[in-house]
C-alpha cells in the first residue's frame, strides 16, 4: 500500500533539494563560459589584467562549484532512495543519459577544473586555454545529459513498455536525445546560466565601481558581462518561446495552466496578461486580457485550437477507463507472461496504461479494478496541475527576463560610453539585481516541474506511484537531515562568497599572511614561521574591507 504522506514528503524533499541544487548550477554553466571568453582575451592580447580577471572570477566560480557538485550527488542518489518505483520503471531509459553524463561530461569537467586552478604554472598558455574551454564544455554537456533525462520525463520519446519485464524500455536512443523538448530545454537552461553569470559578474563589478576599487578589473568585467548578458537574454527569451511551442504539442495541460485557460476558446484565443486563477471553480477570479494574442504566441498560427482545461479533463476521464483495462491485463501477465488473452487486452489499451495507474490512488484498497466512476472523476481532476502556482511562477520568470534585458541594454549603453562609474544609482541597481536571475531560474524549474504533475513521466507514470515505500519516520529523518545540513552549507557558502568578493582580486599578500599564521607548530616541511594570532589577522582583513 502506498502512503499519501510519504509521497507528499518525498515530493517536498525532492523539490527542496533540486531547487537548492539549481541555485548553484546556472552560475557554473555561465561563469565557465565567461571565463573562456576572458582567457581568450588574455591569450590573444597577453595583457596580464585579463589573467588576473580570469583567476579572480575562477576563485568565485570554485566556491560555487563545490556546492553544485555536492548537492548534485544528492540528486543522483534520490532517484534510487526516494523514487525507487520510478527508477525501476524507467531506469532502462532514464539511467542511460545520467551514466553518459558522468562518462562524457562530468569526468572531464572535474578533471579539467583541477588543472584550470592548479595548472597555471605547469601548462602553456594555449594548453591552459584549452583546459578552460573544456571546463566550460564539460559543465554544459553535463546540463545537456541531465536535460535529456528531464526531457524524457516531460515528453517520453524513444521508449516502449515491455510487458515481459514490466517496465519502459529504450527503443531509439536518437529519438531520446533529439526530442524537441530536450533540445529546447537544454539550450534554454544553458543560456539562462549565461544570463545568471552575466548578472553576477556585472553586479560584483558594480560593487567595486561603487567603492572605486579594482577599477581596471571591474570596468573590463562590466563591459564584457553586459555584452555577454544582452545577447544571452535575447537567446533565453527566444528559447523560452520555443519551449512553449514544443510544450503546446506535448503537454497541453501544462500550457493551459501556464496561460490559465480554463475553457477552450475560439481561435485566435485571448492572452491572459494578468489573472487570478481559482482551481476549485475552474475559472479566473479576474483577468486582464489581450484579445487574439495567445494563439499566435503559442502555436505561431492564427487558427490552431488550443484546448482549455475543462476539455482536457473530460478527455482524460475516457483514457482512465481504458487504462484500467491495461492495468488489469498487466497484473495477469506479471505472473504468467505467456497469457495470450491478457496480452491482447493489454495491447489494445497499452497507450492508456499510465492513466490506469492514475486511478490507483483513489480506488478502494488501491486496486484499480475496484475503481468506481466517482474515483475516476477524482483521478481525471487530478490530471490538471496547480494552475495558480504555474501561472504565476511562469509570469514571474518572464517578467524577470524582460527586466534583465532592459538592465543589460542600459548597461551596454553606459559601458560603451565608458562612463558607467558615473551612474551610482544604476550601479546600485546592478548590485540589487544579483538575486534576480537565480530566482528566475528557480521559477522556471517550478513552472516546468509543477506543470508536469500529476506525472513523473508524462502520460506514463503518476508521481504518486513513483515514490519508494518508506515509513513516515524515515522521511522525517531524511528531511531533517537535509534541511539542517543544507542550511549550514548555504551559510558557509554565502559567507565565503561575500568574503571573497570583499577581499577582491589583490589578496595574494593577505593569503600569504594567513598561511604563515596557521602553520605555527614547527613543520618539518618548511622554514620558520612567526606565529601570529589568528584573530588579529581576521580583524585586519575586515578593516581592510
Amino acid at each position, binding site marked *: 500500500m502506498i502512503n499519501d504522506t510519504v509521497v507528499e514528503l518525498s515530493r517536498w524533499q525532492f523539490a527542496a533539494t533540486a531547487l537548492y541544487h539549481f541555485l548553484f548550477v546556472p552560475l557554473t554553466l555561465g561563469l565557465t563560459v565567461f571565463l573562456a571568453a576572458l582567457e581568450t582575451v588574455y591569450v590573444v592580447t597577453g595583457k596580464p589584467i585579463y589573467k588576473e580577471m580570469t*583567476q579572480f572570477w575562477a*576563485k568565485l566560480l*570554485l*566556491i560555487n*562549484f*563545490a556546492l553544485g557538485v*555536492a548537492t548534485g*550527488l*544528492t540528486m*543522483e*542518489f534520490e532517484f*534510487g532512495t*526516494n523514487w*525507487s*518505483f*520510478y*527508477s*525501476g520503471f524507467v*531506469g*532502462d531509459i532514464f*539511467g*542511460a543519459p545520467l*551514466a553518459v*553524463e558522468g562518462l*562524457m561530461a*562530468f569526468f572531464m569537467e*572535474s*578533471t579539467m577544473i*583541477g*588543472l584550470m586552478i*592548479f595548472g597555471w604554472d*605547469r601548462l602553456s598558455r594555449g594548453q591552459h586555454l584549452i583546459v578552460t574551454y573544456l571546463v566550460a564544455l564539460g559543465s554544459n554537456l553535463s546540463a545537456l545529459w541531465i536535460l535529456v533525462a528531464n526531457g524524457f520525463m516531460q515528453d517520453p520519446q524513444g521508449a516502449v513498455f*515491455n510487458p*515481459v*519485464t514490466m*517496465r519502459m524500455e*529504450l527503443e531509439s*536512443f536518437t529519438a531520446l536525445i533529439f526530442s524537441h523538448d530536450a533540445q529546447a530545454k537544454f539550450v534554454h537552461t544553458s543560456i539562462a546560466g549565461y544570463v545568471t553569470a552575466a548578472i553576477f559578474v556585472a553586479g560584483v563589478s558594480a560593487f567595486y565601481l561603487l567603492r572605486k576599487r579594482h577599477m581596471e578589473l571591474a570596468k573590463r568585467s562590466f563591459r564584457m558581462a553586459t555584452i555577454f548578458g544582452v545577447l544571452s537574454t535575447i537567446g533565453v527569451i527566444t528559447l523560452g518561446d520555443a519551449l512553449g511551442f514544443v510544450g503546446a504539442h506535448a503537454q497541453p495541460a501544462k500550457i493551459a495552466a501556464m496561460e490559465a485557460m480554463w475553457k477552450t476558446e475560439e481561435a485566435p484565443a485571448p492572452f491572459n496578461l494578468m489573472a487570478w486563477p481559482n482551481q476549485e471553480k475552474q475559472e479566473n477570479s479576474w483577468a486582464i486580457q489581450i484579445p487574439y494574442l495567445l494563439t499566435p504566441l503559442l502555436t505561431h498560427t492564427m487558427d490552431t485550437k488550443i484546448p482549455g482545461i475543462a476539455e482536457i479533463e473530460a478527455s482524460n476521464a475516457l483514457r482512465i477507463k481504458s487504462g484500467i483495462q491495461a492495468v488489469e491485463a*498487466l497484473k495477469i501477465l*506479471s505472473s504468467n*507472461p505467456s497469457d495470450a488473452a491478457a496480452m491482447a487486452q493489454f495491447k489494445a489499451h497499452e497507450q492508456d496504461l499510465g492513466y490506469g495507474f492514475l486511478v490507483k490512488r483513489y480506488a478502494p484498497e488501491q486496486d484499480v479494478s475496484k475503481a468506481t466512476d466517482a474515483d475516476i472523476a477524482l483521478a481525471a481532476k487530478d490530471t490538471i496541475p496547480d494552475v495558480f502556482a504555474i501561472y504565476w511562477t511562469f509570469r514571474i520568470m518572464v517578467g524577470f527576463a524582460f527586466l534583465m534585458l532592459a538592465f543589460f541594454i542600459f548597461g551596454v549603453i553606459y559601458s560603451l560610453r565608458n562612463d558607467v562609474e558615473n551612474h551610482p544609482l544604476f550601479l546600485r541597481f546592478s548590485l540589487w539585481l544579483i538575486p534576480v536571475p537565480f530566482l528566475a531560474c528557480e521559477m522556471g524549474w517550478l513552472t516546468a516541474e509543477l506543470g508536469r504533475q500529476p506525472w513523473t513521466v508524462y502520460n506514463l507514470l503518476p508521481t504518486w506511484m513513483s515514490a*519508494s*515505500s*518508506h515509513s513516515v519516520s524515515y522521511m522525517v*529523518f*531524511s528531511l531533517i537531515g537535509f534541511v539542517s*545540513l543544507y542550511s549550514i552549507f548555504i551559510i*558557509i557558502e554565502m559567507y565565503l562568497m561575500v568574503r*571573497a568578493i570583499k577581499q577582491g582580486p589583490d589578496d*595574494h599578500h593577505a593569503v*600569504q599572511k594567513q*598561511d*604563515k599564521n596557521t602553520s*605555527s607548530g*614547527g*613543520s*618539518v*616541511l618548511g622554514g620558520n614561521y612567526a606565529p601570529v594570532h*589568528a*584573530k588579529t589577522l581576521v580583524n585586519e582583513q575586515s578593516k581592510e574591507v
Partner: protein
Amino acid sequence: MDLYLGLKVLWWLLLGVLLLGLAVMVGMDMGVGALLRIIGKTDLERRSMLNAIGPHWDGNQVWFILGGGAIFAAFPLIYATAFSGLYVVMLLLLWSMIMRPLAFEYRSKIPTEGWRNIADWVFLISGALPMIIYGAAMGNMLQGVPFHFDWDLRSYYTGSFISLFNPFAILAGLLSLALAMYMGATMMVIKTEGVLAERARAAGSFAILVAIVLFAIGGVWISMMPGFVLTHSVDPALAQTPLTQTVELVKGGLLANYKAMPILWVIPVIGFAGMIIGGLLLRAHRPAIAWWFGVLAWVGVLGATAISLFPFLMPSSTNPSQSLTIWNSISSETTLLWMTGFSAVFVPLILWYTSWAFYVMRGKVDAGKIEKDPHAY
C-alpha cells in the same frame, strides 16, 4: 553466444570495474581523509596531505558518481531496490560525501584554528564512514537483504536500519576501510617527504596487516554461511523479472562456484598476494609499486565477493525466490548496446586525460608553494 547474454556478462564485469575504480580512486582519497588527523600533526602537514590529492580528488570522486549512474543505467532494479532498501545508510553515505567537497574547498579559506579543526573532523568522518558503508553493503549482499516485490515490481524493505550493521557486515566494512587507508597512506608516501612520509609508511603497514587478518577471517566465515542457489529459472539470455524463478538457501552455497571451478581460487589468492607483497614493498621504500599491489588487493577482494555471489547481485533473505540476479535486474539489450558504445569511446578517453592530469601535476607537494598559492587547499 547470444548477444544479449554476452552484454549481460560484459556489464556484470564492467560493474566490477566501476566498483573497483571507485574503491581504488575514491577509497584512496577517503583513506587520506581518515588518516588526516592521525598522521598530520600540524596544519601545514595536513595541508600538504590535502594538496597532494588536491588536483585529483574532484576527478576521482566522479568514479562514485559514475558508479551510481552506471548502476542506474545498467541495473535499474538493483539501483532502485538497493538504494531505497538501504535508505538510512545511503543517506549517511550521501551526507558524508557531500560534506567532503566542502571541507576541501572551504577549509583553507578561513584561517582560524577552530574552523580548520572542524574541517579535519569532517575529513575523518567523510573518509571513514563511506568506506565502512561500502564494505558493509557488500557484506550485506553476501548475506542477503530483507526485501520483496509486489506484482508490479514495487519493492518493500522489511528489515531495520540496525540490522544492516550485523557482525559480518562490520567486518567487511572494516576490511574496506583498512584497504582504503593503506592506499591513502601509500599515496602520501609517494607525494610527501620527511616525518610525514614516515608516519604514512607506518600507518599503511599497520592498515594492510589489519586487512590481511580481516580478509582471512571473512573467508572462513563465508565458508560457514548459507548461500543462495537458483533451482528454477528462465534462460539467462532472455528478458525476465525476479518474479519467475525459484531460489533456495544452501549451506556453504557461497563457495559453490569455487567448488565447481577450482581455478577461481586464484582470485582470493591474488587478493592475499597483493596485500602481503604490497605491504612488504611499502616497508622496502617502493611506494609506487606498493600502490599498484594495493590495486591488486582490491581486485582480489571484490573479485572473490563477486564469485561467491554469482549469478546473484542482491539476494533476498526474506523471499529468496525474488532475489535479484544479473539476468533479471539488467537493462534491455538496446540500452546495454548504447552504453557499451559510449563506454568504448569515453573510458579510454577518460583514462588518457586523467593520466595526463596526473602527469601535469606530477612530483612532490611543495610546502612552500602552498603558502603562496591563494588557490591551495
